[in-house]
């Protein structure tokens, strides 16, 4: 597709016109081209943590003293940008941990001679960390919301939407990984347990068949087997309990997030609808403000105060009259 760049012509005109204009500043540093001129450049230290595609770092700012042109003052972003950056760095960290978790899952599922307890602990730890990160981010996300139909609140709302989508995707990924891991784990365990149960049943049948003499021996055998299978069941239940807890937590988070996420393809995903809405809310906000102003002006307090002052004056006049007459 064809495009045409008119920047060079524009710059040519601009420079020509600027040189004709009386230079109003003597300082060498200019705020031209957005690049770091002479003044100190303030950048966020946490840039390295951020996703390279997402740069919330502010533009290079300069000392207020330097900007002699006046209108373009300090360009530090408002405080809530810090919150949004924290959240996005959390998302980034959680993503890295997910990669580690995937590796740990794969390792745990591989047949090994060891107990596998260490792998389990690592998996648990990682899962909890990720869930914790998501939960923290979600709490912070609620803080981003602001009251009032200003432009700033629109931006905050949109930033909220975008981060909510990220968080929701992250939590869905985590749950999918968890559920596949759990499934495969169950398959494996069931394989073992199935054999055990079979043996149990056989043992049971053999008890019925045999005489009481053999009871004692078989009972012991059977008891040992039962104890082992009990231990397995307890162990499995504990694991399942943990996964269920994290599933519940994530479900809760998903419920909260789904309110914030925009459904794709619906009317709220349309740019013109959002502009219209913003316009009407701003108008309505303006009307509310005007109404509030009016009621305040007309307000009881003002009336009372004026009435009282007038009364005071009248009383004063009456008092003076009284003293004069009498």
């Amino acid at each position, binding site marked *: 597709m064809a*495009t045409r760049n008119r920047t060079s012509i524009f710059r040519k005109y601009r420079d020509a016109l*600027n040189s004709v204009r009386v230079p109003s500043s003597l300082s060498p540093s200019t705020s031209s081209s*957005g690049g770091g001129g002479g003044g100190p450049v303030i950048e966020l230290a946490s840039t390295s943590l951020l996703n390279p595609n997402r740069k919330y770092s502010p533009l290079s700012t300069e000392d207020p003293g330097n900007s002699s042109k006046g209108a*373009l003052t300090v360009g530090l972003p408002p405080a809530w940008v810090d919150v949004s950056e924290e959240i996005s760095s959390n998302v980034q960290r959680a993503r890295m941990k997910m990669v580690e978790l995937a590796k740990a899952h794969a390792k745990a599922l591989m047949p090994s001679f060891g107990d596998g307890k260490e792998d389990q602990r690592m998996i648990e730890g990682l899962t909890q960390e990720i869930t914790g990160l998501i939960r923290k981010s979600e709490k912070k996300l609620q803080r981003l919301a602001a009251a009032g139909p200003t432009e700033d609140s629109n931006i905050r709302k*949109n930033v909220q939407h975008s981060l909510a989508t990220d968080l929701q995707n992250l939590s869905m990924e985590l749950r999918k990984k968890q559920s596949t891991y759990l499934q495969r784990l169950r398959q494996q365990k069931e394989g073992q347990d199935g054999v055990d149960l079979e043996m149990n049943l056989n043992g049971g049948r053999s008890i019925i068949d045999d005489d009481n003499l053999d009871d004692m021996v078989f009972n012991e055998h059977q008891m040992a087997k039962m104890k082992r299978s009990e231990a397995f069941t307890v162990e499995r239940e504990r694991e399942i309990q943990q996964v269920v807890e994290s599933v519940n937590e994530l479900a809760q988070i998903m419920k909260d997030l789904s309110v914030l996420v925009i459904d794709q393809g*619906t*009317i*709220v995903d349309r740019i013109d609808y959002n502009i219209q809405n913003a316009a009407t809310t701003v108008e309505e906000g303006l009307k509310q403000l005007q109404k509030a102003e009016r009621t305040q002006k007309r307000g009881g307090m003002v009336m009372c105060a004026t009435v009282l002052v007038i009364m005071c004056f009248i009383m004063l006049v009456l008092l003076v009259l009284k003293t004069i007459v009498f």
Partner: protein
Amino acid sequence: MVLVSAARDYVNRMLQDISGMKVLILDSQTVSIVSVVYSQSELLQKEVFLVELVDSISKSKESMSHLKAVYFLRPTLENIQHLRRQLANPRFGESHLFFSNMLKDTQIHILADSDEQEVVQQVQEYYADFVAIDPYHFTLNIPSNHIYMLPAVVDPPGLQQFCDRIVDGISTVFLALKRRPVIRYQRTSDIAKRIAQETSKLMYQQESGLFDFRRTEISPLLLIVDRRDDPVTPLLNQWTYQAMVHELIGIHDNKVDLSSTGKLPKDQQEVVLSSEQDAFFKANMYENFGDIGMSIKRMVDDFQQVAKSNQNIQTIEDMAKFVDSYPEYRKMHGNVSKHVTLVTEMSKIVGERRLMLVSEREQDLACNGGQVAAFEAVTNLLNNESVSDIDRLHLVMLYALRYEKESPVQLMQLFNKLASQSPKYKPGLVQFLLKQAGVDKRTGDLYGNRDLLNIARNMARGLKNCSKSMADSSSSCDAVVIPQPQDVVIFIVGGTTYEESRSVALQNASNSGTRFILGGSVVLNSKRFLKDLEEAQRIAKSSTNVV
């Protein structure tokens, strides 16, 4: 995909090279252009956290220099003035200016003059000056569409503005396709001729460098036709999904406004009907009403099954599965309720207005049947109480367009009957229509070969009514058969209809080697067509009074 993907590419390129938080500033026309191809969530992914209109943004006083401003505007006088004011008191850190059409040097000068703070980083022309509502269908949403029916002397500046907008739109379509076309126009239409000549001047003389693309074997073809050559199509009732929704309810920029149907929750009062985002709509937009009913029933059954399985949650695994699939479930639910609401509403209207009956007569009038039978049928329907005024008007118009010459007496009778029955009917409207688009004004046999594509093909093959309009060749009328072009862009001055875009889409799907693209000044339904007629009639009357 061509038009939609071109527009999307332009928007992508605007946003991708600029890092950091951005605000996108549009004007009232570019809002439509961007909204039909780009969604809010995609903007959020590109870190655009605020979208504003250029005329409203100047009211706010907040300074937000941590944001970078991306302007995408049409290069009109008002927009340049708005920009001037905003550049003089910049609220944002950087400004990147993108224009949807060619800038004049004076405009660049004005902008450079006001950019004292030097906030502007780039000035580019990204040629997306058309609203790509479907892959092969674009519109220009021109508000004063009726002006094409009026003679030039009535409102010369208005007409010039109208033609300029069309020339701008068409030229950007070709710039987006990177081709320069051979231009043909309908000989009997003055406005088509004027637009063709101005487009040719732009592409071959004024900006010939810009349009000088790599020449392929066969140039594409631009056909400019006049709506009045086929006034029947906008007046007919439609029975395929997209066309029907537009006819009965109205689609604007792929949005349908259902607020008049009442008792709907607030978030369902407006819905989106876009073939790009809605797979069900894409599969069914050209199907007729009966088949739509079947498809919707199937969709509802599928959905009910999913809903039932979701209710049957017994184990933890079921719960986990439910939470996993919840977003998709919600989307499906929204989609199903949207289509069910639309079809229910349309069925209601069909029932109320007896559209089955009316449409049968309309089709007879348009296609077959003799004059006497037609007259009787129309008279019967005029006498029928349950037929609405607007449908009666349609019928009389269709009858008049077909049997204009055959029996003037009976035609007069129908006019009188119509005037007596419909109090809101503006007298003389049908006659005005005949004056605009009567038999004498039309080319070809409208009723024998009422297929837009056939007409287009005939014109492309250089048959009798050809008039070449290329600056570099003599204007003799050739009878040479020109080889079949690969790309044909048809522009209908006065507006397209969704029925025509359907034929174009079906033709393109059949892979015949030629790709058609359709565009118009607006997208018509019968309501809009009548509105344009009434407005033109009113102006014509008042201007003759003045003169």
